[in-house]
């Protein structure tokens, strides 16, 4: 009788009596096919954007951009005010990320290390707000923004997105991992509570803050629903909105131009993916009892 044939994780040394190499090979092939289906569309997008517009619908498709042709990228700058879109997206995303990091750090610290009445109840309320879908609150938020005269501005996108339940939760978890003795030591040295936070805890919480910032960046850079509602004039569009309207304007015309815009919009996300993938994965799965 054959017994132990496969190891399940890499870490533990399990004796493999009979190596079943073919089963590994089958798995690798299946996984490779899955990867082709996942990455293929993105490669096709990149490749098509780098080819002359006339070759956009060439079949069989080319997945490797062998002779890069940049006319589509020139066209994006001509047909679309892409500089303004990038500036808008960067402003909105950057200010939301910074705002979330600041407010979440403060609130997370208070929930973790400061004592006050109703702390538990208040934290439960903060957690509960995470369950309310944004689409349900969007109508009153829109009216509020309109009421204070901020409709069709970038601030209409930025301000409502700054208070973050998830970021507060993450930062509370992070601060709870730092010992309370630090505050006591700082107090003995004569530091005020604010200084204790500013000079002792906040610097130690930078990795947690980075996760909050990266998550905010990834979410709001790609956001479509709120900008679609909150902005009206094209000068206030963010990238996803501008690209969708470009596709609408062109119909099925210059595909490569639209795709060039899509590729340009992916660059910041790609940078985050390369340098902050771990933080992003940790943040996305935080609080799921992983």
């Amino acid at each position, binding site marked *: 009788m054959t017994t132990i044939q496969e190891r399940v994780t890499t870490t533990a040394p399990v004796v493999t009596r009979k190596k079943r190499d073919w089963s590994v090979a089958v798995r690798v092939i299946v996984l490779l096919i899955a990867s082709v289906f996942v990455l293929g569309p993105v490669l096709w997008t990149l490749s*098509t954007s780098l080819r002359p517009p006339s070759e956009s619908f060439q079949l069989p498709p080319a997945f490797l951009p062998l002779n890069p042709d940049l006319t589509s990228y020139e066209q994006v700058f001509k047909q679309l005010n892409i500089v303004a879109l990038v500036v808008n997206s960067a402003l909105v995303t950057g200010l939301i990320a910074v705002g979330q990091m600041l407010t979440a750090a403060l609130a997370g610290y*208070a929930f973790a290390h400061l004592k006050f009445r109703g702390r538990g109840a208040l934290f439960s309320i903060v957690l509960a707000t995470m*369950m309310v879908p944004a689409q349900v609150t969007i109508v009153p938020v829109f009216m509020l923004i309109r009421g204070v005269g901020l409709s069709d501005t970038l601030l209409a996108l930025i301000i409502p997105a700054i208070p973050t339940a998830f970021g507060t939760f993450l930062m509370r978890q992070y601060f709870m991992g730092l010992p309370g003795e630090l505050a006591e030591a700082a107090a003995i040295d004569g530091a005020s*509570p604010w200084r204790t936070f500013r000079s002792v805890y906040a610097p130690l919480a930078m990795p947690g803050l980075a996760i909050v910032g990266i998550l905010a960046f990834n979410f709001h850079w*790609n956001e479509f629903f709120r900008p679609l509602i909150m902005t009206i004039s094209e000068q206030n569009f963010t990238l996803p909105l501008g690209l969708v309207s470009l596709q609408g304007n062109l119909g099925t015309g210059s595909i490569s131009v639209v795709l060039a815009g899509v590729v340009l919009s992916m660059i910041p*996300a790609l940078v985050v993916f390369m340098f902050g*993938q771990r933080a992003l994965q940790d943040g996305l799965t935080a609080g*799921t009892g992983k």
Partner: protein
Amino acid sequence: MSTATSTPTGTGSEPGRRQAAHKNGQGSTRRRVQQRWLPWAFLAPTIAGMGIFTLLPIVASIALAFFRWDIISAPTFVGFDNFAEVVQDPTVRVSFLNTIVFVVVAVALQLGLALGLAIMVQEKLPAWLRVFFRSAFFFPLILSAASVSIFMRYLFNEQFGVVNWMLSIVGIPAVPWLTTPGGSAAVVILVYVWQNFGFSFLLFIGGLASIPVETYEAASIDGATGWRKHWFVTLPLLSPTTLVASVMAIINALQVFDQPYVLTRGGPGDSTRTAVMVIFESAFQRLEFGQASAIGVILTLIIMAITAAQFRLSKRFVFYQ
């Protein structure tokens, strides 16, 4: 600014605190007052922001559902009329039905794919390959759903799209993806699952990593191999992760908007219109803010009910170690 914080014990007993205050030549009341409002200063931005942009809108949304309001003229109280109209509106009904079908199919596909791939990645594999597959499956999550839908629309083009070209290789005639109700629904589901299965995949990877190796060794000694091992060991031990993954997948799928909006605008006909799309359309295109709120309230209730039901079911089926 007060410097009277040098209590020996941090939180400080009353005598200790008074002593310290004396040393710094300040009254203890001031410090106590500061102690009391300090946490609220830290919390103020978040609490005020959430109050204004989440809690108030929730209350306003529920209230608004009982009014007729086009934002221009004064709102009029209509009781449950909005709910009655919404429930009878054929477009709304079709959209909710579409959403339910979408959720069932997309979530089943997403979880199945994610679980299968996670098991394959977690088993014996060279480390660099594991890193590559993890990154590859995670990658679509960093893209914007709008951008993804833009390029997928070209890939699913009936005459020139790559998808139909691939199908033609295996002898399947061109599928009218975006021009028929069934085809459009399939595209929305496929594009959504393509982008989102990586999230469930990550959760399953985490869950699988927490299953102790000894369990598999014991199972092997008892003679369990291959799929039996996964059926009798992996699935029960993974059930807490499966619960979390399915709750999150269902809640997210119920709110689908970007993909159908960019891919099909809800068409042809109403075939890919979703619940959130009708909220968007009745509020911002037809200016029926009361009706939009009523639909939103119904959607929220459905989400809450499903979440509660899943956690109740979990008490019976989820196996905690």
